[in-house]
């Protein structure tokens, strides 16, 4: 899953989509995940990183991750060929 290349993401968690003019605010966890996605990391790699870093098991993380990914798709923040 790749997010749109054109998305501008600030360190504070502000996301701007220049093609639609929409902007969003991310919490710190979402920001961390979206940065991993922008760097091209796979869901498995992200899961490994997050579960090692935080007190969360793989199944729980997976559930929340795909929920978040669905939200990104719905908001059209995912690269077109990945939708």
């Amino acid at each position, binding site marked *: 899953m790749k997010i749109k290349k*054109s998305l501008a993401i600030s360190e504070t968690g502000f996301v701007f989509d*220049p*093609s*639609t*003019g929409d902007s969003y605010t991310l919490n710190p966890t979402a920001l961390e995940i979206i940065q991993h996605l922008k760097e091209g990391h796979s869901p498995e790699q992200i899961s490994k990183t997050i579960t090692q870093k935080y007190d969360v098991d793989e199944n729980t993380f997976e559930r929340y991750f795909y929920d978040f990914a669905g939200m990104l798709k719905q908001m059209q923040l995912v690269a077109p060929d990945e939708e």
Partner: protein
Amino acid sequence: MKNNRLNIAISGLNNVDSPGPGIPVIRGIRESNQFQSRIIGLAYENLEPGPYMHEFVDKTYKVPYPSEGVESLMERIRYIHDREQVDVLIPNFDSEIFVFIKLAERLKEMGVSMFLPTLQQFEERHKSNLPAFGKKYGIKVPDSYPVTSASEIFDLKKEQKVDFPLVIKGKFYDAFIAGNSDQAAIYFNKISAKWGLPVVVQEFVKGTEVNVVALGDGRGNTIGAVPMRKQYITDKGKAWGGITLDDPGMIDYTHKLISSTKWRGGMELELIRTDKNELHLIEINPRLPAWVYLAVAAGQNLPEALVQLAMGETVEPFTEYAIGKMFIRYSFDMICSLDEFQQLSTTGELS
């Protein structure tokens, strides 16, 4: 270049909640590094804010409404020209453009230049002519029908040419979404009382409204184009906040439209982007819009370029603009003296 001073007459000074483009156009002109300017305001009402905004308007003259006829307007412009030696005139209201197109040659003979669409361009982009316009230039437009009575809307519905929701539009301004026959009749009466006939009934296209401000040189070239999305919309449908977009599709669309129509002058495209990512043209306004200063701030001083084109100069097309540049409109209580108000009211002029 900057030593060159132009006297520029500008209308649309009603900088109110549904603002005319006059003041934003002047802001662009004031920021020109190509020429200096003396701004002559053309006002219709004593309480238009522009005449009292002395940092933007050097001298204001009241002018008769276009509905009072071409000759009375021409006579007034001649009076103003005798005193001000107007180099360029920029009409900013849709309702004025037709009259000024008609006056263009006579004004040119007097030495007053304008840069307006041709009569054909102006007529064929009318809301009521939009389907034919779309067909001619191969672009998607919603079905539109001019009507002169509310019963015609019901007939269109009976004939299954249209279905609710519908957009009921004035020939110059205003648009309402009608969900049923009762609402359609109410909006028809409201709009026809304000803007006259015909009223335009348009198919409702679901999607996101996006806009482009652009300037065509009349030979098929786009001098500049900046796409924007309204972020905050007033109850009159006006942008109270907006942001420039990175949308090559909209820029390409604008270039093709200007190239095929050979559009001359400023324009605003009102488009709907559907869920399928298709652009539907819902309106072409034949002038720069009130949000044109966003384009100036984004790096395309279209009002300056329009003045240069009017003066017969060659203008290099803009190729870039800043993406994510925003505007937020605000209202402001300007304190004015009674003396100024009485000057404009009684003499029709204000310095």
